[in-house]
């Protein structure tokens, strides 16, 4: 394969893209929406109501007078008691300490809670350390060494933002490829192109690269504002810069380009069978479904969105890419294009 021939096609495609307003819209507007608008819309409201992190625990003036080990405590009002491994339900507690306790439907004030699980309760002006809170409000409390509800939401939203960064390079090719392949077919400009001394592979590589390069490039460029916005908005709550992290790096630099290739190749196959740009875009869009499915599964907690699963997901897409590549090579042949492309 002569790369210089493919590069001539890439440059010609770029010249055409610059003149096509729909391609320009998709190359500029979509990344702006996903890298600027969505992070702001999703993260700012949550961060406004989120509890800030704390380095030092609150001074609570607790004076322990009794210690309870194990057992159950329910339907009572308690003060200045230290609980260990106790199940607490429907209790009003003030100035107490809880270690490895399970607290349900209770009101806890001015207390220290350590390694406990708190469900359906209110924890007011207390230190919550290494504990899990479920459906619990914690006004004026500090979270020490654990994730607050708002932190959990933030992490969830940040992970869902990653989904968009995998989707951008899959969606943009559906627009560009439809014009590149179906447009060329409608314009009847394929035959003179096929009559040139180039191979089918050089033509396909040129067209694929012309779509791949801008799609991935705008994704990578739009990562920068997204990272800045996410970090600026979440730092006051999390106390650290969450992006970039390895999951995002794998998502944006490994999974996203593979998805982009898949999208281009699927669109080559779709273009062979349709004769309308809109139809090509609609059918080609199905390529985003696996990415959406993966992130829904991850965000629903079925699998943990970590480096391993990102690598696994990327590898699966790589295998699909290879299969689709060989199919598209069969579809993108002079004979097929001139005889069977409708």
């Amino acid at each position, binding site marked *: 394969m002569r790369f210089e*021939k493919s590069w*001539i*096609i890439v*440059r*010609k495609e770029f*010249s*055409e893209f610059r*003149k*096509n307003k729909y391609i320009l819209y998709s190359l500029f507007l979509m990344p702006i929406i996903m890298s600027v608008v969505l992070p702001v819309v999703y993260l700012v409201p949550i961060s406004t109501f989120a509890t800030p992190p704390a380095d030092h625990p609150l001074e609570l003036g607790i004076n322990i007078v009794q210690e309870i080990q194990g057992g159950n405590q329910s339907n009572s009002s308690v003060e200045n008691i230290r609980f260990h491994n106790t199940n607490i339900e429907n209790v009003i507690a003030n100035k107490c300490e809880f270690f490895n306790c399970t607290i349900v439907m209770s009101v806890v004030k001015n207390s220290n809670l350590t390694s406990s699980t708190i469900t359906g309760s209110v924890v007011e002006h207390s230190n919550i350390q290494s504990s899990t809170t479920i459906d619990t409000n914690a006004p004026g409390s500090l979270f020490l060494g654990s994730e607050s509800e708002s932190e959990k939401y933030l992490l969830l939203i940040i992970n869902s933002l990653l989904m968009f960064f995998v989707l951008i390079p899959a969606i943009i090719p559906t627009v560009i490829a439809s014009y590149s392949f179906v447009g060329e077919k409608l*314009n*009847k*400009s*394929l*035959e*003179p*192109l*096929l*009559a*040139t*001394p*180039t*191979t089918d592979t050089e033509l396909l590589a040129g067209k694929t690269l012309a779509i791949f390069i801008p799609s991935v490039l705008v994704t990578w460029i739009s990562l920068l504002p997204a990272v800045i916005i996410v970090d600026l908005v979440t730092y006051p709550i999390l106390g650290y810069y969450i992006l970039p992290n390895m999951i995002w790096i794998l998502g944006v630099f490994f999974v996203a380009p593979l998805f982009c290739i898949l999208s281009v190749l699927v669109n080559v196959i779709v273009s062979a069978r349709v004769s309308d740009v809109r139809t090509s875009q609609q059918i080609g869009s199905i390529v985003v479904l696996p990415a959406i499915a993966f992130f829904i599964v991850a965000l629903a907690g079925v699998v943990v969105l970590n480096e391993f699963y990102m690598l696994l997901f990327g590898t699966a897409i790589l295998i699909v890419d290879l299969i689709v590549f060989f199919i598209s090579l069969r579809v993108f042949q*002079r*004979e097929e294009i*001139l*005889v069977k492309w409708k």
Partner: protein
Amino acid sequence: MIEAQHLGRVFDGTVAVEDVSFSIKDGEAFAFLGPNGAGKTTTVRMLCCLISATHGTGFIDGLDISEKNNHIKIRSMIGLLPENPGMYESLSAHRNLDFYARLYGVPEREREARISAMLKRLGIFDRRNDAVGKFSKGMKQKIAIARALMHEPSYIFLDEPTAALDPEAAITVRNFLLELKKEGRTIFLNTHNLDEAQRVCDRIGVLKTRLLATGAPDDLATRFFGRSTIVHLKVANPEFLPAIRNLPGVLDARLDDKNILLSLVDPVEQNPAIISALVLKGAQIEYVQEVKHGLEDIYLKLMGGSK
């Protein structure tokens, strides 16, 4: 030389081209005539290595089109003007030609000069930076021709180059083809336009899935109609016919109004004897005329129609 040897193509059981054989010498202009669906475009596509032949083969400059290894080399030697100009309409005329010049491997130092020369020759240099989408059909066709010639190919295939053009644009294109012919390029022309074929081409081939006939237009006329003479009389009389029917070299003689239509082996040889015989019979001859059969007559005869 362009050569087809028993070339054939079947699409899903439908025979598009069957057993077509011909050869075109270097520097010759050859036209393929035939109705829509006759297989003209399919033949050109096979010869340009765009689609494969299901039967037979062809040769371009001695290179076998059925050998895949030859395809790049063959395509670099030919210029193809497809039925539709197929330009990149958002790009300028210059950018369109520059793209193809690069793909055809025109050296960088020659590229610009060649594009400018071609645009000047076709009279569109002043609009070289305009988007092709703004051009008329005729101008697009000119650029498409320029595109096919960017690499100065020895063999030029033109598929209906003047179809859908207004008469003025068609004349410009046709004159350009004549210039190419003068330059000694080998031209293969697919056309419906019989006049165009006759003006531009040395030989024609009539195709209707199978190749029905090939040859120079005059030779084909002689082959299918013989050579004919019309004798215009002042007064017609059926008794004149027996006097000339038996003369040597007369194949047929019949009366049509005041004219006698004669089919002859060689009019130059036989005309004096015929005229003498008619005068002896008392005929008053106004004038004698040779009948010329054009491509239209040949085409319609081959297609089974009538004028």
